[in-house]
């Protein structure tokens, strides 16, 4: 955990208890936490002090979260995670299009939030250094697959995958966005024609997802295209 003590995280929510809980959780991970309870204060702190990451609630008095993000984005380039009690997909899209990097719906698991914070910080600070050390890598968001070593990195950390899982990941990482039917994955990995073996592929996929996704029940990368197949989302 290199240089984590230096990371300042701004937590903004009008509910003081939530801010305190998030702060306690993050501080236990070694981060320094700045607190704000409305959009104006958040803007003030974000622009005047050194902040490495912002966790901000959407619905707040004085200046709402989305407007604050837009104002901060005009001046600064730093990861922003949006908190919202709305779980509608459209809200998520609006949040992300306003310049947020990640979207967490309330009620969230603090562990998940911490994981996302870590992921975002890694991506912003160490983007490029380890991945680009080897030219033969596929980078997709926070995932990075090294073709020489056959190792998948998530946020820079190597993921322990079995041989089959690695093969599946490689296939999908080489074709981000493309949908692979389970039969195709099976025939390509096992070099056999698929016959009622879909479950095997599916179980493997689910295991990979549990290893690489922050929240496996709401995957961001390894997605199921229902009734058709699987894909790794292009980020």
């Amino acid at each position, binding site marked *: 955990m290199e240089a984590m003590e230096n990371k300042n995280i701004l937590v903004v929510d009008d509910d003081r208890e939530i801010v305190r809980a998030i702060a306690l959780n993050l501080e236990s991970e070694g981060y320094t936490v700045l607190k704000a309870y409305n959009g104006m204060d958040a803007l003030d702190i974000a622009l005047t002090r050194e902040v490495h990451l912002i966790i901000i609630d959407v619905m707040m008095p004085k200046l709402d979260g989305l407007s604050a993000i837009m104002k901060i984005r005009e001046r600064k380039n730093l990861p922003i995670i949006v908190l919202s009690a709305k779980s509608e997909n459209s809200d998520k899209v609006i949040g992300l299009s306003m310049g947020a990097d990640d979207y967490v719906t*309330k009620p969230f698991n603090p562990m998940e939030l911490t994981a996302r914070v870590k992921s975002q910080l890694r991506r912003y600070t160490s983007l490029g250094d380890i991945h680009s050390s080897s030219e033969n890598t596929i980078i997709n968001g926070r995932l990075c697959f090294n073709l020489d070593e056959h190792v998948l990195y998530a946020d820079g950390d190597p993921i322990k995958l079995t041989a089959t899982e690695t093969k599946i990941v490689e296939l999908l990482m080489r074709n981000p966005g493309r949908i692979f039917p389970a039969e195709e994955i099976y025939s390509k990995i096992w070099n056999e024609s698929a016959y009622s073996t879909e*479950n095997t592929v599916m179980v493997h996929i689910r295991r990979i997802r549990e290893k690489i996704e922050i929240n496996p029940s709401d995957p961001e990368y390894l997605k199921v295209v229902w009734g058709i197949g699987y894909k790794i989302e292009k980020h």
Partner: protein
Amino acid sequence: MATKSKSIDGNIFKGLISWLCLLALLCGLCLAVVLSIIVLANPDLQTRAAENLQEFAGSGSPYYSGAVIEGTEGDFEEDNTLWAAAMDAQKQHEELIYTRTVQIVCALAILITALVLVFAFRRDRRQFEALMAKGMGKLWVEIKCLLLGAILFSGMLFLTEDGLVFSLCLWVISLYQLCMDIGYNRQFFRHNIIHSVLKWLNSYKSMTTFEHRSLRRLFSTLGVIAGILGVAAVVLIWAPNHLYHAAGPVLGSVMVSIVVFTITGVVGTIVWYVLGLKRDLQDWNALMAQITEMYGGNLNAVNHVPPTSNLYDCAMQLNMIRTGIEKAVEEGTKADRTKVELITNVSHDIKTPLTSIISYIELLKKEPDLPDHVMDYISTISRKAERLSSIVQDVFEVSKAATGNITLNMEDLDIGKLLQQTFGEMDETLRNSQLIWRIDIPDVPMLVHADGQRLYRVFQNLIRNCDQYALEGSRAYVSLSSQNSCAVVSIRNVSRNEITMDSEDLTARFVRGDQNRTTEGSGLGLSIAKSFTEACGGQFSVRTDGDLFIATVQFVQINRAPVPSAPLPPPPQEAPLPPAGYAAPRG
């Protein structure tokens, strides 16, 4: 009450007295004026009147005559006979004076009494007059005119020297009554026979039914035709016998004109009737078109039946029904929207404290050196908090789906593959369950048009439902089959508890198989499955047979090859003909 009616009666009596006095006064005044005018206008009468007056005054005026008598008393004293005669005359004169005085005093007293009565009871008089006017207002103005004319005419007849007083009084009284009537009845002229007849006709029209009106028109038409034919027949039979003195050509032309008149009359009447019938039929047509259109779903359809139509009332009522339905639908949508808003707000309000609860539980878990039982409590709280969180989300989703407020990403997908994927996703649940799963999914692709994510939730809920409520160690069957070009997924299991409710209730929100609610679950599983299936255009049904529980999801199959290796999923397309009961998502 009694006293009141008594007092009213008394008032009427007083009013009557006052009114009579007023009339008497008026008559007297008019008489005096008319007489004086007659006297003044006629010199002959004038001298006669002057003589009369002198005669009256010569013996009548007490002051003047008294002075004369006093002055002449001494002159008459010496002549006894003369004196006696004078005394006699004086006596006579005095008697006369007395009589005249009494007369004048009486007249004055009567006059003053009448005036006093007129003024004292003027209020009662007005009431009495109003009462009379009300009664008179019921008479038509034509009848009043007739009466007035009759009175004036009869007054003319009596306008002789003797009847003058009578006719004058009659005129005065009738004029006074006329003025009073006009003054009190504002609709004096409007209350005439024509107006009443029109009103009666209108009320007759509105009172009778359409059937009566149509029949009346038919019968009146027939009556008019019969009348014309009858008159023509009578004339045709009568004319040749009685017009014998007329020459041939005249008779011929008369006959011809009668025939022409008859034919024109009959044809005209028939045309009139047919035109009316056609108008009615056109209006019927308009009404029926509106009903058809409204039945087809277009509530905005309006008819253009003119107000003069026989069917106007009916058309107006239909329009009113339309407005009523529109209002009800509008209120229904509004209520739905309010419901979703309410649930959205409530779930938001629950989520915020829940976030704190979950966060602090996590902090507690990190606390070192906690005794085991405390850790146990914490994990219980944690589990319950997670459950609460999932219930809130479920409630939110089901309310949105039930009101059609969800956005769907419809695409063609292989339902068999989707089931396989669902089992893959739920691998852990299946493995840990106490059930033996028998899964029968044919290899042939079965394409349906649905939202994959929602359909996954449907099957996920059904499988979880099985897992939670099925008897341990029993077999659960999941099968996919094609029936009547529909893809049918059926999930069967034996319930652990006795199913005491009917299948309708099972899919209702917050209903669970165990009435005492001991198992985990929001009670929304089947409800979500049903709402999502129906939102995607499928049919969801639940059946129970003893302890056997059967859930069926049915989608219309589509016959198109899938695009398995497309880099991107095919764009959402329009659904094929949705089955009945499919409600297009709103908003």
